[in-house]
């Protein structure tokens, strides 16, 4: 085998140093621009950070694909939900007239909204696809209030970085960075295909995040907390998903 010359050693040393310096600079930049996901620790951290940083930059000014009405799936599918509690059944019996969405955290005016309050805000509809991490998908029309309207109403403080959102099911909670929380297609969904959002699909209120995979679309939404850090929520990895082994960011 050929002996390693001094010149080659020098070149390899320089390349390694440049590589490490490059990583350090990239790491600093990623932190400064908020491109490091809350679940960046561990062996999957590098891949997850690359995916989140790239897709986050790609979707700053783009919209998830929307489809013509003719492409709405005749047979949508929803993962079976857990049996509803008595409190939920009571609420359902009175047409969810007592359903409240609490919005608190780093906001000027914490507030609680009824479904009627939300419906009095600007309503948007979108025909987008729900894509499950398992591989299946369906297209539906989703009708509701864009989250950014609600966030503007409560007055988000400048240091806010995430909107955490919670379900009446205690194990179901998640969060979005402020770019995706204020994305025009991120909507508080109350209607589906020209009717009320069925309970099987997360009614009366579901977070719809068409830029990400299905599991970010938390059903039975009742609370949103604006925060500058996800460290104090659960195990600090951004959502319930990483605690079950799943990625916080689900753009793919």
């Amino acid at each position, binding site marked *: 085998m050929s002996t390693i010359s001094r010149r080659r050693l020098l070149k390899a040393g320089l390349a390694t140093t440049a590589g490490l310096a490059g990583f350090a600079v990239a790491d600093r930049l990623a932190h400064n621009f908020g491109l490091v996901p809350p679940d960046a620790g561990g062996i*999957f951290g590098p*891949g*997850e950070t690359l995916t989140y940083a790239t*897709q986050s930059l790609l979707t700053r000014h*783009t919209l*998830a694909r929307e489809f013509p009405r003719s492409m709405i799936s005749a047979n*949508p*599918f929803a993962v079976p939900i857990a049996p509803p509690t008595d409190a939920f059944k009571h609420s359902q019996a009175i047409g969810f007239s007592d359903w409240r969405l609490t919005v608190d955290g780093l906001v000027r005016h914490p507030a609680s909204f009824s479904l009627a309050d939300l419906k009095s805000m600007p309503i948007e509809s979108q025909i987008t696809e729900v894509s499950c991490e398992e591989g*299946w998908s369906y*297209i539906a029309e989703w009708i509701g209030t864009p989250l950014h309207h609600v966030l503007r109403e409560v007055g988000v403080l400048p240091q806010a970085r995430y909107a955490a959102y919670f379900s009446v099911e205690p194990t179901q909670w998640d969060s979005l960075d402020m770019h995706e929380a204020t994305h025009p297609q991120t909507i508080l969904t109350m209607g589906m295909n020209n009717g009320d959002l069925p309970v099987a699909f997360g009614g009366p209120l579901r977070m719809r995040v068409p830029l990400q995979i299905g599991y970010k679309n938390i059903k039975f939404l009742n609370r949103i907390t604006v925060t500058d850090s996800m460290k104090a929520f659960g195990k600090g990895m951004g959502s319930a998903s990483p605690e079950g082994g799943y990625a916080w960011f689900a753009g793919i």
Partner: protein
Amino acid sequence: MVTAPTPVVTKAPRHAAVVRVTHWLTVIAFLALLVTGAEILLSHPRFYWGESGNPNMHALFSLPLPTSRPWVNNGFGTAMPDGNGWGRYLHFEAAWLLVLTGAVYVLWGLARGHFLRDLVPVRGERSAGGFYRAVRAYLLGQRNAASDAHTYNALQRVTYLTVVFVLFPLMVWTGLAMSPSFTAAVPAAANLLGGRQSARTLHFLVTLLLVLFVAGHVGMVTLAGFWPRTRAMIVGRSGSVPGEEKP
């Protein structure tokens, strides 16, 4: 300079260092992607064509496998544990390794003329006759071990070019076409393929082609001498060819 059929005596390594390093990184990434891809497949071994498809819709084809989710029963029930969490994490991390490694290899190959020199079939072999001669040589066992160890025949060249410039790019494309974030930025990625479910089905079918390639590749390496060829891909020299410098 190459004057076949006399054995080529050269001091240059059989495979350049960049080829060797990127080859094994690709092996690691491919194995990780294959295992995690199979794991993810078990959560929904049904395939569709078009934009959408789900358990309530007609499948294009369905694989008789045990699944990891109760709403898909292809004859074996829900026998598999759910591993989509780590499966998806590792799938995308390995995909980054594959894409970055592939980028280094292709950019290096273009800059150094690797593809034109080593992989585009040589002038006299760019014909049906050239391929016929290569296949016949395989079938009759008329192969010159010494010159074979230093160059590729037309069949190998076209196969490697197809894997590098057709199959792997198709895998990356069909994979990204399933991403709601990526297709927001590049809608054509999914639309050109006929939709998200078409992309998923193609992702699976191209996987089969790549597995077929790997089986053929490892089979041929074994026929040619597994350890000398593998050693050549690790340290650059096989150490078995007369006249070649010992490692």
